[in-house]
């Protein structure tokens, strides 16, 4: 049975190695050692991204401040992977789960299962029709409108615009993009309106030439920007709507030596973008507050766990509003961010 002995030995090595805390420097999980007698909460994201690393710092801080156990779980695949990871958290017996559902309309069963087995709140992307106790996050539609306002400030006389985004099949990305379009076209808010990605959208001032999706592939995202610059010579403003998009836009526009002609407007607080705003290469960005998503999620779950139901606002939402960051306030914002993430 040499095969048995070999495989057994090898597997034990792998499992024990992987479980070793010293190997977990790039950890997505902030707790493998449970503090006995304390509740355990889980913070589940919708993908792996730097944005969530900032949220993780918030979770860690809350964990220290409140003396509870907390894990951050980042699914690296599709809705199937998110579901599997949630089921495993339920199997582990966690006391509360804060989740950013990938597809709230169709994940009803999974969300119901969470609510039946643990305290259940949503963050970042809401599931209003689920039995969640509260939503912590911003209104993506309003944040999209803020981004539209930035464009209006940058180009008050009108612009030829291309939008770049990871995908538009997620609730938050849909709303964010729609808010931006509605603001530029001076439309009133309408939660069900959806302009398809294909085709030009315009009024007398602003033209949205195209929405390009890269499926979270940075290399492809860069190609899309470069191709858009070739295809639309008249394009004079680009917007990156997911965290990783704007640095790529900036890089591509700089590479083509067209920074003077093409204005870059961003979303989220990537360090390159903040530096770009300081240097005058990026007009501005709309920032969320992932750190607070992490901190407040754990804080609220702990309050509910202790029986303090009044911690949940009547509206069922704890608003962590988005903000516009431009040259005037970038230094203040960045200093605060660095202090929070300990850099």
């Amino acid at each position: 049975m040499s095969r048995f002995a070999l495989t057994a030995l090898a597997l034990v090595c792998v499992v024990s190695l992987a479980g070793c805390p010293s190997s977990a420097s790039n950890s997505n999980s902030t707790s493998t050692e449970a503090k006995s007698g304390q509740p355990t909460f889980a913070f589940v994201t919708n993908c792996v991204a730097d944005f969530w690393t900032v949220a993780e710092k918030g979770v860690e801080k809350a964990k220290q401040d409140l003396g509870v156990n907390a894990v951050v779980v980042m699914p690296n695949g599709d809705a199937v992977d998110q579901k599997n990871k949630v089921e495993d958290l339920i199997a582990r017996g966690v006391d509360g789960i804060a989740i950013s559902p990938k597809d709230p309309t169709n994940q009803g069963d999974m969300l119901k299962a969470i609510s039946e087995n643990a305290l259940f709140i949503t963050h970042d992307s809401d599931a209003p029709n689920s039995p969640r106790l509260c939503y912590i996050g911003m209104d993506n539609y309003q944040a999209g409108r803020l981004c539209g306002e930035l464009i209006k400030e940058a180009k008050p006389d009108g612009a030829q615009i291309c939008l770049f985004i990871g995908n538009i099949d997620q609730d938050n990305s849909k709303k964010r993009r729609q808010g931006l379009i509605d603001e530029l076209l001076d439309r009133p808010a309408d939660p069900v309106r959806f302009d398809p990605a294909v085709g030009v959208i315009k009024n007398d001032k602003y033209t949205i030439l195209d929405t390009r999706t890269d499926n979270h592939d940075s290399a492809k995202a860069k190609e899309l920007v470069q191709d858009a610059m070739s295809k639309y010579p008249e394009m004079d403003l680009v917007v990156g709507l997911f965290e990783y998009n704007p640095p790529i836009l900036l890089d591509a526009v700089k590479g083509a030596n067209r920074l003077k002609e093409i204005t870059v407007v961003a979303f989220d607080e990537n360090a390159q973008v903040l530096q770009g705003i300081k240097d005058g290469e990026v007009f501005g960005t709309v920032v969320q507050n992932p750190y607070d998503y992490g901190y407040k999620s754990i804080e609220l779950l702990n309050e509910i766990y202790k029986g303090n139901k009044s911690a949940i606002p009547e509206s069922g939402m704890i608003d962590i509003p988005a903000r516009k960051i431009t040259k005037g306030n970038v230094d203040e914002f960045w200093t605060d961010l660095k202090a929070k993430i300990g850099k």
Partner: protein
Amino acid sequence: MSTSNKKILGILALFVVIVIVTAMSSNNFFRPYNIENLIKRISPYTVISIGAALVIITGGIDLSIGSVIALSGTILPYLLVNSGWSVAPAIGATLGVSALIGLMHGLLITKLRLQPFIVTLFGLLFYRGIARWLTNDQSTGFGNQFDGMRDIVTKSVSIPGFSFISIPNVLFLAVIIAVLAWVFLNKTIFGRYLLAIGRNEQAARFSGIHTDRYVIMTYILCSFLAGLGGILFALETNSVQPSGFGNFYELYAIAAAVLGGCSLRGGEGTILGTVIGAGVLQLLRNSINLLGIPSSLEYAVVGGVILIGAIADELFNRIATMRRVKHK
């Protein structure tokens, strides 16, 4: 004991070791809730892995499995929800499209003599693109409708006398497919043909086997099973994001087949080994989550186990060969 039986024993040992390690470290592993989840996850992977194994046994490869899963997972809700089809024709059409995809692969490989890698690489990109285009890149699913149909896959049946655990329905489907595939491969002449083609296609052709016909058949079966897998995943999750749904699943299917003893050179492989191989991969992912291993390490651990499995297999083969030489 034959080589293939030893391989099955090896992969089974790996499975048992992971179960023991996980159960020792986590009290939650053997909870009925977790076991049911595991069975629900392993079953659809078993279905797609069997398809991959059949193709690999004939010396081919199918890289398009994940994209066929995305396409079938997209077509079914599209037909049911958007186009208002009833359940049976919608499922029939979805499986029919999947089988047609396999037929096309088979014809391109056998009649045009294109390499399987290229043909199915085309498929990997093409079907994903079609799925995304069809849905306008929007998530799709069954919403709150078609619960009856979803129940067939998502619900479990309880066993009289064993009230603490129930068996997910989808397991029965996986078992039926595995048994049919096992009978087909081991108890029919067609199965022997597949192994013969994988060993040496020319020799098989000169012995009077219509090799093209059987190669085409395996690609049809593989895509059909991938399409069925796509339906199962879609019914279970009820959320299909065409840009990501089924991404990399072909690699899980191929890895399950190879862990289970299939040789990528063709001519070798068993259904039982493949089933256990699929089980090992899903079990590992479950263990990683239960043991609190950082999810960023998930791929590293799964990759490591695949490599260790391959090395152990190779070393074992060498030792066995050396022993045989000594005995002679």
